[in-house]
């Protein structure tokens, strides 16, 4: 054994020297493209995901034209869409369905999750725990590239014969099984994305458990790290069942099996020749077993970002840090036992629906605790209304609306009325769009100085914020009215043939105009993002006077992150400590004797 150890340490020293030599002659490709540095990978994720968000939003802006003015040629781009999508610029129903399915898929799996977890998680989390990098840097690079391949696969499916997937982002069987070939490409793309998430989540958990700096105990972790930690567990354990479901649906489509195809299915008046004996509801169970935890994958990192920004800009400790930590853990656990509240309409028995209604009501408790703790943190604070803080503050009521409107959907009697209406769309978009995406914007403004060494412009930021905030509410608020009136989602003309929609359709014009205006208000952000990289005001290490570890590293941090090994002396949010010389006491500053 002695022999082994001495052998090992010699080799260790050698490997070290080799590594440093190697580091200096990194070429362009290894440094910026196939990088194993968590910060570069985080920025790669961020930029790719922002582009996908823009693309997914563009799809929706096109759909909104069709809903506002059904049957009228799409202006500007209509003539370029092609005969099999929009002849004479007028959208075909099949193309509308493709846009709908791909909007959902792109926003969730290619936009928000990669930005919240791949982008912010990768860039910020190792810095906040004082680690030199992720635990498995090469695996990290692989996660990004597998995600990239999955994304390209999804985009390529638009050019498949018959177009992209058109069975909604939920891909319910049996429709998805008999859909055109775009669905097969969708499934292959999903398997890539799931693989990427799995690799990433293992990496995140190991990094948080193993690479915390000296002195950084569990109860000293910034809330953002806790949120990423729980999120990683959700990805790790909830995604494999969808992978299984994806494999099964692929078998149904390619190998002719009937996992989700019942016997005696009749489509368009003709009996399908399938092996039969399958169960279409099984797909829904497997799908929602992932997709409900996925909702928390979308929201938890956003809560983490908002917590950081609120603590920093209220100059006060977060209210109820421990309650926040326990709530986020409990939330993660409960998110695995609520999935069938998406399926009250499948004819499940009352015992089952009673169980899932109960768990759904229980899971709302930790969400409310988290939101309340953040709200109470504002009490009595002298708030700094910086651009990130504006977005973070808006998150609170927006997520509140999204969460509270979810309660009627979690109870079977009211869900039966609201199921599959625009109410549902309004509800989850309040959670994800003005909720999560606002938090993500807040994060971009907040950590931009760390990533680039430059601050973003506050005037452009304010235009971006107020424009987006007003427009996005005009987009989603009327959907509650439409939904309560019974207007069905997924109708390519808004459901013109139904009498009960007659008074509701006018809102589609309002929503459409607000959605396009919302698109215009993203332009200041895009300009700000690129212009600030070049002309932004220089930022030092700690431009926000914050307390967590990422502000100890240089802006931008070099390879290996910290100049000296960081040591943690206190909790994450020690702002305005009585008797301290300044109003923030960073985790990395030792107590004065």
């Amino acid at each position, binding site marked *: 054994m002695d022999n082994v*150890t001495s*052998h090992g340490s010699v080799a260790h020293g050698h*490997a070290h020297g080799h590594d440093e030599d190697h580091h200096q002659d990194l070429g362009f490709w290894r440094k910026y493209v196939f990088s194993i540095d968590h910060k570069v990978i985080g920025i790669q994720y961020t930029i790719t995901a922002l582009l996908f968000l823009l693309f997914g939003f563009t799809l929706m802006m096109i759909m909104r034209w069709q809903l506002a003015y059904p049957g009228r040629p799409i202006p500007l781009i209509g003539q370029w869409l092609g005969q099999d999508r929009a002849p004479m610029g007028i959208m075909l129903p099949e193309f509308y369905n493709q846009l709908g399915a791909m909007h959902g898929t792109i926003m969730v799996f290619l936009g928000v999750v990669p930005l919240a977890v791949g982008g912010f998680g990768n860039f910020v989390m190792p810095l906040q725990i004082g680690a030199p990098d992720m635990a498995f840097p090469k695996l990290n690079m692989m996660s990004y590239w597998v995600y990239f391949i999955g994304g390209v696969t999804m985009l390529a499916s638009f050019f498949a014969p018959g177009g992209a997937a058109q069975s909604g982002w939920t891909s319910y069987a049996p429709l998805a099984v008999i859909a055109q070939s775009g669905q097969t490409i969708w499934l292959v793309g999903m398997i890539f994305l799931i693989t990427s998430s799995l690799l990433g989540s293992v990496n995140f958990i190991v990094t948080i458990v193993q690479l915390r700096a000296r002195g950084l105990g569990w109860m000293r972790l910034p809330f953002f790290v806790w949120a990423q930690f729980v999120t990683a567990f959700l990805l*790790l354990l909830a995604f494999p069942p969808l992978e299984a479901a994806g494999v099964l649906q692929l*078998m149904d489509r390619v190998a002719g*099996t009937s*996992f989700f195809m019942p016997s005696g299915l009749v489509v368009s008046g003709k009996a399908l020749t399938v092996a039969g*004996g399958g169960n279409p509801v099984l797909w829904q169970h497997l799908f929602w077993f992932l997709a409900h935890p996925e909702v928390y994958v979308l929201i938890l990192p956003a809560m983490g970002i908002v917590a950081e920004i609120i603590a920093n800009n209220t100059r006060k400790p977060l209210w109820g840090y421990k309650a926040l930590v326990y709530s986020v853990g409990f939330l993660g656990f409960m998110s695995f036992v609520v999935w069938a509240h998406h399926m009250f309409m499948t004819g499940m028995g009352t015992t089952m629906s009673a169980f899932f209604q109960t768990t759904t009501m229980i899971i709302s408790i930790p969400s409310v605790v988290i939101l309340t703790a953040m709200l109470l943190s504002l009490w009595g604070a002298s708030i700094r209304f910086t651009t990130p803080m504006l977005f973070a503050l808006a998150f609170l009521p927006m997520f509140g609306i999204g969460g509270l409107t979810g309660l009627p959907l979690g109870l079977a009697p009211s869900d039966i009325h609201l199921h599959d209406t625009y109410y549902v769309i309004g509800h989850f978009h309040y959670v994800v769009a003005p909720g999560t995406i606002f938090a993500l914007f807040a994060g971009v403004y907040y950590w931009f100085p760390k990533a680039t060494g430059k601050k973003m412009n506050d005037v452009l930021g304010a235009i971006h914020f107020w424009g987006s905030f007003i427009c996005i509410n005009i987009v989603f608020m009327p959907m509650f009215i439409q939904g309560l009136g019974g207007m069905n989602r997924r109708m390519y003309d808004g459901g013109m043939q139904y009498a009960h929609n007659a008074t509701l359709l006018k809102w589609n014009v309002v929503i459409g105009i607000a959605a396009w205006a919302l698109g215009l208000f993203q332009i200041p952000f895009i300009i700000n993002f690129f212009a600030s990289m070049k002309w932004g005001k220089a930022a030092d290490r700690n431009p926000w006077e914050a307390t967590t570890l990422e502000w100890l590293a240089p802006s931008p941090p070099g390879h290996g992150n910290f100049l000296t090994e960081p040591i943690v002396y206190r909790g994450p949010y020690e702002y305005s400590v009585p008797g301290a010389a300044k109003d923030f006491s960073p985790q990395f500053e030792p107590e004065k004797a």
Partner: protein
Amino acid sequence: MNIPYTVEERPDTGLTNGKLGIWLFLASEVMLFGALFSTYIILRMGAPEWPHGELNVTLGAINTVILISSSVTMVMAWASLKMNDFGKHRLFLAATLVLSAVFLVNKYFEYADHFARGEGPAHSTFLAIYFTLTGLHGLHILGGMIVMAYFLGPGAGLWKKNPEQFANRIEVTGLYWHFVDLVWIFLFPVLYLL
């Protein structure tokens, strides 16, 4: 720059990064196969009748013995490293690789037999789940074989440079291999016997 705890354990967690990583990966694998087993249960409970005796129990039993033996040789391959006997390690690792290859050859004969009778995955729900489960398990075997071949070939050089890290890698491979073995131990009775 070096990532800490790749070779030595972190004192307060008692783990190396690799070992924690593989356990987490296996947890996700449990969920993957768990979902497929649940599918099996739901489809079987909903089926009016379920076929029996369609599979070759003898071959299945032989494969079970082969895979369990390969788990034993895998442990020996790791234990030999801990006893500083690299030659023995290579012998046991090669044996594991050969046993897993034999497993796949047997599987090939079973598959070929079904296809010869024109009974592919589309033939019945039972065969659909049979091919999906065993196919996915087969892919896991193949993945393990690639890793073992790597440690017999280009990856073996690490033993000279950093024996402890090499032993850790073999241990992690072993953990994965035991899991693949364990999945089969569930698959065999569920598909062949029940």
